[in-house]
């Protein structure tokens, strides 16, 4: 087993005629936290969505846990995986969205159990027990009967993290998890993520929270215009940027 959880080599992705990713190379080491930063439209979210195959990359090689994303290599040919195989792949990759995307018609507890029950075939009682355990972990054990519309944005995002964790993922993707939150609610979500990082979860976080990146990330990638401009140790990259683009980006966000 190699120690790379995600490996991207020359990944390209276009929408219509617009090239969003222009050959991205990236390595995410198992058990480490990787932050993707960059201006909006730089391709951070697209890269994240390619990793769990919500978007299909056009060319290049993208591997998660040693397996090609969306394809299978057999006898020198790439076979496109069918829906079922792709779903099985995805169920082991947790994703947290900018706008939470909790299931509005289900209670907090049901949000966390539905994936376990319907996708993994866990017994409802066991699923509920696990959900309560996770709710306790994100500090929301008293909210299980609430509907998403009845709790705050920060609480919703913590439930969303618990929902993803319930699938026992090997990799967690965060797509700007705090961007839709009121400033005073950002902290509680970052605390949960910090805690998760400490527990050894492999995480890729698209974020504008530079302090979080500096403090928690092992590696930071700066994307601009669909290419990786700079990468490395966050303290070095973020405090003494080499490229002019990163310098001007940091001067705007900090």
């Amino acid at each position, binding site marked *: 087993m190699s120690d790379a959880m995600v490996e991207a080599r020359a990944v390209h992705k276009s929408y219509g005629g617009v090239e969003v990713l222009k050959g991205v190379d990236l390595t995410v080491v198992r058990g480490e936290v990787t932050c993707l930063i960059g201006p909006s439209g730089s391709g951070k979210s697209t890269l994240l969505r390619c990793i769990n195959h*919500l978007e299909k990359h056009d060319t290049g090689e993208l591997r998660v846990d040693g397996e090609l994303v969306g394809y299978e290599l057999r006898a020198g040919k790439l076979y496109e995986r069918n829906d*079922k195989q792709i779903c099985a792949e995805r*169920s082991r990759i947790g994703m947290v*969205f900018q706008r939470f995307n909790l*299931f509005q018609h289900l209670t907090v507890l049901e949000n966390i159990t*539905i*994936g376990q029950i319907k996708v993994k075939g866990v017994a409802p009682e066991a699923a509920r027990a696990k959900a309560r355990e996770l709710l306790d972990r994100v500090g929301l054990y008293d909210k299980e009967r609430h509907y998403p519309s009845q709790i705050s944005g920060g609480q919703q995002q913590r439930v969303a993290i618990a*929902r*993803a964790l319930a*699938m026992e993922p090997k990799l967690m993707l965060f797509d700007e998890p705090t961007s839709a939150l009121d400033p005073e609610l950002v902290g509680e979500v970052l605390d949960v993520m910090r805690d998760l990082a400490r527990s050894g979860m492999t995480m890729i976080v698209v974020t504008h929270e530079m302090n979080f990146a500096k403090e928690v990330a092992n590696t930071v990638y700066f994307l601009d215009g669909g290419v990786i401009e700079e990468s490395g140790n966050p303290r070095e990259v973020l405090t003494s940027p080499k490229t002019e683009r990163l310098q001007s980006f940091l001067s705007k966000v900090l």
Partner: protein
Amino acid sequence: MTTNGDAFQVVPVRHVGRWIGAGFVTLLVAMLIHTLFSKLPSGQYACRLVSGVRTCRPISVWRFSWTIVGQYFTTSEILHGLVTTLELTVLAMFVGIVLGMTIAVMRLSPNRILSSTAWTYTWFFRGTPVLVQLLVWYNIAILYPVLSIGVPFTHLTLVHFTTNTVFSAFVAALIALGLNEAAYMSEIARAGLIAVDEGQTEAASSLGMTRRQALRYVVMPQAMRVIIPPTGNEVISMLKTTSLVSVVGVVDLLGAASNIYSANFEQMPLLIVASIWYLIVTTVLSTGQFYLERHFAKGALRSPPPTPLQRLRRDVAGILSKFRSRRGKLEVVR
């Protein structure tokens, strides 16, 4: 509001225009109610011979013939017609909803053949009047005298029967109403499916759900909130549209009423009988719709609206508590 500790009396705004309007409407309603329960001269006279003198006075009858209405309201013919109407409504709506949902899902499919077939279906069945469709299905044996299932472009047949044995007037009516309804229901269902945020599907996929699972456990239940209210309207509308089937000889509620009045010439009383029954069923359906909507609003509203019963209880409790507190105050004064 108080100034220097003195309480002022609050004088509400007087809405003179509203009062005049309300008075005028009340007058019109009173006039209408009066005509409902007024009498007309029947043209006949009741005469008596009192000590050799014949005195006659005109006999007047209820304008709306309420006695005849009452007489026919629960006759078995009318009740049988009502049952047929209800059967047609339920079955046609069932066909409409199931087929409509299927067409809506087809319409949203990435497969072009599926989506364009769905579009064409809706285009055709919405584009022709339901009465015409009813007549076409009733006369379908002219086009297809024999129905058989086999392999296209060969002479192999598996099942075979004559059309008229299967297509009774009732079946023709059911198919016509059901297929027509499916076209409308598919648009309603499609609107509901589109109304659910795309993020919900993405979140479902990120948990590893298949397209079908995401649709069933995540999208459909939320689409229901948008789909239910117009579907309730469709049911009520269908209840009334079934009255068209009397044209092809199905004895529904209206058919039963018209059968009776063509024999006794009491058109108005029997039309009133039918109308009252339609109103009763519609009222029951609307009540059901309210509770269904409330059920599917789960999670969308912070607190669901109170049921009429809850509202009544709350109002009564409110009045009682006012009463109690007033009494309590009096005791304090004493």
